[in-house]
């Protein structure tokens, strides 16, 4: 069974080799030492206004939580979709119940403004 993952293994090996090659070449051929600006966040870009190490708003965590819930919902669609014909109407009702309950959650989050960024 695992033999069929040979191409994946080749892909992993090739991408690791490429990463090693690029990093190795830049460490051999690149300039040494830390000149002016080499330690900046963006060496030739905008100057950061504040430190990145500060507390982020709770909105990010809330959005991640909502994403997680609906991500799991979608995960359940895959095994359902591949046996949709076998389950027939029974499966459709089952899934509609599932989606319906989660849709209540969606409406709730929407009404409470959890999906608005401003």
């Amino acid at each position, binding site marked *: 069974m695992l033999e069929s993952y040979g191409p994946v293994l080749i892909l992993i090996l090739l991408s690791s080799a490429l990463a090693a090659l690029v990093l190795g070449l830049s460490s051999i051929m690149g300039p040494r030492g830390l000149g002016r600006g080499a330690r900046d966040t963006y060496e030739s870009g905008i100057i950061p206004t504040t430190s990145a190490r500060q*507390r*982020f708003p709770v909105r990010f965590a809330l*959005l*991640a939580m909502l994403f*997680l819930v609906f*991500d799991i*919902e979608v995960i359940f669609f895959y095994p359902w979709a591949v*046996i949709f014909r076998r389950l027939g109407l029974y499966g459709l009702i089952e899934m509609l119940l599932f989606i319906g309950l*989660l849709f209540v959650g969606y409406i709730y*989050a929407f009404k409470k403004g959890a999906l608005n960024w401003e």
Partner: protein
Amino acid sequence: MFLFLLLAVVAVAASIAMITARNSIHSALFLVVDFFCLAVLYLTLNAEFLAAVQIVVYAGAIMVLFLFVITLLNPGNEETDDRLRGQRPLAVALGLALLVEVALLLRTQAIRDRLGDFPPATSFFEQVQTRINGTPTAPIGNVQAIGIELFTTYVLPFEVVSIVLLLAVIGAVVLAKRQLR
């Protein structure tokens, strides 16, 4: 067997690195390594769908949530000393106790009979195949086997999952609402 040993060593090493890392972001990244090891372990157990879910949900969505929570709690203040004194020896003692318990349990014949052989003589999806088709030869895929079990035998748990997820949405919105205003 070699693959299992390799994965087990990497997974345990990543776990140890995760709990000893001073920087919480580094801990989270070691956890990603752990999740990937588990995904490949699922692959070796012929559970392709679970492996994909492990990467999509755990290494994807749950890690995003973890990172946002870490940034919410201010990553600048790394913990320098033990907040809970005497926690470490207690944790080691309890962990060892649990390990001994599991080892003793696995040596019990009654438990071994219930667990069956490892690796099992007939895999989960061969069993489902036999039940559906009456013969193990007509091939159905791994995802189909999970789907058939999930939507027939385990309908109730499946529907309860939607209630649990609904509660997660409501809980998250209620907890974050005060700050949103």
